[in-house]
Each structure stands twice: as C-alpha cells, then as structure tokens.
C-alpha cells in the first residue's frame, strides 16, 4: 500500500509539475505535443491504482522506477531551454512506459 501511495504521489507530482508549465509548453510547437502526451500518460498510469495491489517496494524495479520518476519530475521543474524540455519530457515518458510495463507484468 505504501509503495502504491508513493508511486501515485510521484505521478501526481509529475502531473502537477507539467501542469504548472502549461504556458511554457504551449509556446513551443515541438514541446507542446510531447508535454500534452506526457501529462495524459501520467493519468493513464495513475488511474490504474485498482490494479496495483501486488506492487511492492521489495521489487528491485520499483525503487529504480520511483527514483527515475522523482528525478524526471525535478528536472522538469527546473529546465527552461527547449532542448532540455524535450529531453526531460522524453525521460518522463520513458519512465512512465517502464512503470506501465512493470504494472502489466505484475498484474498479468
């Protein structure tokens, strides 16, 4: 349960960070779609909370994914330049895709 709360909290934090950068994202045609996709991908993973009963902090993947998610959130909060933004969004998307795959494997 704690791991679910932690991971979901980190996803909520990522969504909050992304939402706070709406103005920045919307001024750049290259960043905007990736920003929109990352934001909604956060939701896609976060709302599968009902399937997360088996998620455990004991999983080696969990700690790694959690740390990367926190790192991506922090990075997104501070980066300003277009290239950094794209890199950070790409990083966040990769972590979300990993969490998605991990969840599928754990609940299969």
């Amino acid at each position, binding site marked *: *349960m*704690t791991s*679910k*709360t932690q991971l*979901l*909290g980190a*996803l*909520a934090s990522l*969504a*909050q960070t*992304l*939402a706070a950068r*709406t103005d920045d994202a*919307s001024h750049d*045609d290259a960043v*905007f*779609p*990736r920003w*929109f*996709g*990352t*934001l*909604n*991908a*956060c*939701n*896609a*993973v*976060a*709302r*599968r*909370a*009902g399937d*997360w009963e088996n998620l455990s902090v004991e999983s080696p993947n969990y700690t790694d994914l959690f740390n990367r998610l926190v790192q991506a959130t922090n990075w997104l909060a501070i980066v300003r330049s277009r290239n950094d933004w794209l890199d950070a969004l790409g990083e966040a*998307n990769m972590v*979300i*895709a990993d969490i*998605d795959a991990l969840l*599928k494997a754990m609940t299969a």
Partner: protein
Amino acid sequence: MKHALRTASLWFLPLTLAGCALNQLRIEEATDVAAKGKIAVAAARDYLGKVATAREAMNLEYVGLDPVCKPDMAHLRFEPELKTGVEIKALPPGWLCTPVPIPGETVELPLGPPARELQPTLRMLEGLSTYFAAITQIVEEPGPTTSADILETLAVFRSAATLAGAVSGTDSVLDVPKDDDGRVKSVLSLITFLEMLRTEAEKVKNLRKLVADNDEAGTLMSDMRNRLSIWELARKVDAIIRTANSRAMIETAWKAGPPAAAEVRQQLVRNYYARAAAQIDDAKLFPALDGTLEALIDADTAMRNVLQENPNLDARQRTRLAQLTRKRVAAAFDALAGVLIAFAKG
C-alpha cells in the same frame, strides 16, 4: 427491619459503585466510535461519489477528444499528433489514441465505468458500516423494565383488593400503596439505578464480544484511510489534467487560423475557469475526510483499550471517569437515602 435495610444499604453502596462508572465510560467511548463511524462512512461515500463524477467527466473528455480513444481501454500516444495552430476538434481521428497498442509509443488508458473500479472500496465501507451499526445497536439497546412491571403489578393488586373488598363487604382487605406513595417511588428509584448498572454491564459484555469478533476492524479502518488517500491522488491527477487540458484547448483555439468563433473562445475560457475553481474546491474535501478517519481510528483504539478488564486509561479517560464516578456516587446516595427516609417515615 429498618435497621437491617440500613445495614444492607451501607454494605451495598461501595460494592455497586466499584467499577460501575467505568462501564459508563466504556459505553460512552463506544457511542463515540459509533457516531464518528457513521459520519466517516457517510463522508467517505460522498467523497467517492465525487471521485466517480470527476473520473466520468475525464473519461467523457478523452472519448470526445478523439474518436479512436475507445471506451474501456484506449491506447494513448506519448506524443500525440497535436498542432498548436489547429483547433483540437479539427485534428484528424487518431491524433491522441491508436487503435492498437504500440510498444514504447502508447500507454493503456482505462476508461471503464468508475463505479466498477470503486466497488472494492465501497464494499470495504459496507463492512465498516455494519460494524458501527452493531455498536450502535448495543449501546442503544433499552434496558429491562422491572420498574414498569412493578407498577403494573401494584395496579393489579389494587384492583384485586378493591374486588375482594366488594365481595367481603369491607372497604379494603389489603393496603396496597399507590404509585405516588413515597415508599414506592423511592424503591422504584433504587431499582431503576440498579437496573441501569446491570444494563451497562450487559452492554459492556456484548461490546467486548463484538470487538473480539471484529478484531480486524481497526486494520480495516487504517486500510480504508490508505485506500482513500490513493483515490485522492488519482482524483488529483484527473483534476490537474482536466484543467491543463482545458488550458491547452485555449492555446490551440487562439493560435488556430482562422481563429475560433467568439462563442467557442468564450466557452473554452468558461470551462477553464470552472475547472480551475473546482480543482481548488475539491482539494479541500479529502483533508477533512482524512481528519475524520484519523479521529475515528483514535476513538476505536480508545474504546478497545477501555473495554479491557483492567484498562490502562489515558489522561482524558481518567478525567472523564472521575467526573462520572462523582455523578454516580451522588446518584447512588440519592437513591439509597430516598429509600431510608421513606421507610423511616413509614
């Protein structure tokens, strides 16, 4: 006879008072748990209803954004084919979702009915609700009605005495006291007091059995609190994204060429304002609910502690017990004194 009654009363008093206020405290604590539990269950149900409404609104939005986002399970693009110069409604189908999953490019977005996902949490709430209802039933169970039975019996005796007098031709063959006779009233007061003690002891016995049979209730309450905090995070993400999406729609509408109609622009801004306001308002709900659940868990722990044979009372409980004991001692002396005085006069 009078002397014997006085002597018995003097021995009786300390025996009845010993521990009887503790049972009253136990029942008070149980009443507190039942009341807090009822409030918490109602608040949690109400909150989950709001979670379901928010989730449904978000689902409808995804389905409306792109016809390829299918109900039940959509495959959301990490990088939607979104252009800032084009209104979202003018984007081609498939800009946000794909018909089938693409590894590394899409993520599964469940769009099932929110009610289905909330079922496990709602079932857990039902279980807790039953537990609180059982506590309520025990603490509100009316005690025995011996006092009323005695008055009824006296009425029967009086009728019989009147009838016997009529048959024998005398005024009365038996002097049955009236209901408002001082002796009757004082004895009834004492009986009522003793009945109350017996009823309390019975309630405590039933409460002990209930908490023993529902040993996992405390864990269930903590689990419920945790589960609701997870729903809050999920709701929060839904709310953040709904607001951000509405903001993104404004961006696309403003940059679109030709520009969106005035009504469309106004409606988009209205949506954005409404969602931003709802996001602030709804964020207040969970902290209040969480506080209620925390108070409930504390109350249940306190009740379970005080229900033990020789409880280790905390400072609040010790203070309350002292208050109850003082009141009870006064009530017991009143009841006993009433009997002694009434029979001394007689």
